[in-house]
């Protein structure tokens, strides 16, 4: 089922116009400053239609993502996808934040459950999960399309937001993941952003599987800024493995002592891997676009897009 919700966001408008869209990713950290986020947003602005702002990823207590979601839009003029996890807030707090986001002009929310607190940096925290991600999508549907909260209480004003969901094509077994995505698209998802992908065949297989839900899908890629990041990603992100050859190529770059040369080598390795990947997805699938999770690695956007778009 295709969501018949209007396209409120530029992201959704571009998707509906069948442009091949690109989104980026911004990650607030354990800081009170926003300089880094704003610099990243400015750097990626020419290349992406919107940027996701992560919400306490890996259950780390970082700055509330609503604030940078708003300030990036206001000060940089780059649309944001406000990520919201259900791990840290019950339905009251989620509804409050959705109302606040609507007031601040946020036009996209990515509704996710979030990594469990025991994986994070405050392991003793109570994991809330009053709602799961499907129930949160349902709540957003009620708020956006019916102007009521979950309990049916009337909302004054409009909530004009498009709803994204996450998907994990790396899931093994894949079938329950696919069925779950189908359920969420029926409830009220406008678009899908996938977990990071390295395997082009697996990505294509997944895209074929979800085609029947007619929900635009952005394939997640994660250009690797350094060997350290690649190694961390390989070890600690659930279900994600960096291909051995790519990891090995990254490892080789690490030994270059000159910082500038090293950066150039890393860029080359990334280009060699991701450029054909993106071209293949663009040419042979019905993917709506690419979600480029190049956190603090914005310099890769220009060469990557020059090659692939």
């Amino acid at each position: 089922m295709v969501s018949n919700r209007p396209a409120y966001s530029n992201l959704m408008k571009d998707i509906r116009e069948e442009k091949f869209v690109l989104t980026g990713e911004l990650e607030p950290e354990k800081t009170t400053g926003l300089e880094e986020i704003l610099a990243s947003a400015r750097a990626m602005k020419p290349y992406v239609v919107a940027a996701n702002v992560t919400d306490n990823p890996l259950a780390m207590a970082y700055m509330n993502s609503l604030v940078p979601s708003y300030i990036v839009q206001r000060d940089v003029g780059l649309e944001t996808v406000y990520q919201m996890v259900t791990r840290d807030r019950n339905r009251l707090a989620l509804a409050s934040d959705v109302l606040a986001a609507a007031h601040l002009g946020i036009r996209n929310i990515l509704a996710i459950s979030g990594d469990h607190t025991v994986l994070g940096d405050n392991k003793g925290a109570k994991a809330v999960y009053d709602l799961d991600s499907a129930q949160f999508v349902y709540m957003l549907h009620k708020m956006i399309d019916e102007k009521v909260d979950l309990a049916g209480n009337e909302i004054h004003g409009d909530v004009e937001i498009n709803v994204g969901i996450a998907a994990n094509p790396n899931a093994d077994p894949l079938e329950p993941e696919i069925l779950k995505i189908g359920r969420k698209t029926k409830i009220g998802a406008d678009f899908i952003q996938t977990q990071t992908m390295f395997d082009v065949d697996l990505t294509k297989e997944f895209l074929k599987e979800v085609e029947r839900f007619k929900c635009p899908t952005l394939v997640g890629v994660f250009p690797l800024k350094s060997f350290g990041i690649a190694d961390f990603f390989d070890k600690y992100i659930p279900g994600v493995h960096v291909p051995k050859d790519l990891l090995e190529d990254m490892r080789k770059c690490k030994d270059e002592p000159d910082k500038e040369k090293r950066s150039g080598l890393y860029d080359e390795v990334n280009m060699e891997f991701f450029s054909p990947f993106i071209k293949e997805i663009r040419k042979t699938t019905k993917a709506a676009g690419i979600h480029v999770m190049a956190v603090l690695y914005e310099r890769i956007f220009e060469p990557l897009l020059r090659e692939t778009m």
Partner: protein
Amino acid sequence: MIITNQKTEEEIEEMAEPFGKIFVVGCGICATSCQTGGEEQVAEMVEKLGAKAVGSAMVEEPCDLRIARRDLKDYKDGIKKADAIMVMSCGAGVQTVSDYTGKIVLPALETLFIGSTERLGRFYDRCMACGECVLDDTGGICPITRCAKSLLNGPCGGQVEGKCEVGDYKNDCAWVLIWKRLKEQDRLDLFMKFRPPRDHSKKTLTTELIFR
């Protein structure tokens, strides 16, 4: 059955430290089965407490006020003498003994879960007493208890090869188990069903159950 394990020796020592005379109460049902508060463990505790122990008793079901009263009536003197009662049962038993005796109580056990028993020493968390049973919908596997996030519409992105991100991929993902079970039963329509948010007020308001 209510599954318990004993607090650590240090925790028990620290808890008992302020009291000179302690009476020990065991549980004849669940804590006996768990080998955490049966006759043997009560005897061990008495030995550990040494001169502090002024007596002990086994109560068939310390969580049942009538039975606690019945089984403790012959120990009134020992209980009276004691500064505190160490209860080797689940939290419900500890509180019932506290209500009955009016004494300071020391819980020797941690109450873990309502579990099923495979054999002695192998217990599995199976029920959180949520008050809204969905087992008919989920192939007889409880997602509230067995999914680390208690998701009603799982699985989440944290499952890898059917294992859960919580606990370093040692535990099964409840939703993959549910999917497999429903698939075997040719009932995948139930897997696809959207389960709305739970009504937590039901559980919050159910603090007692009185038939008459």
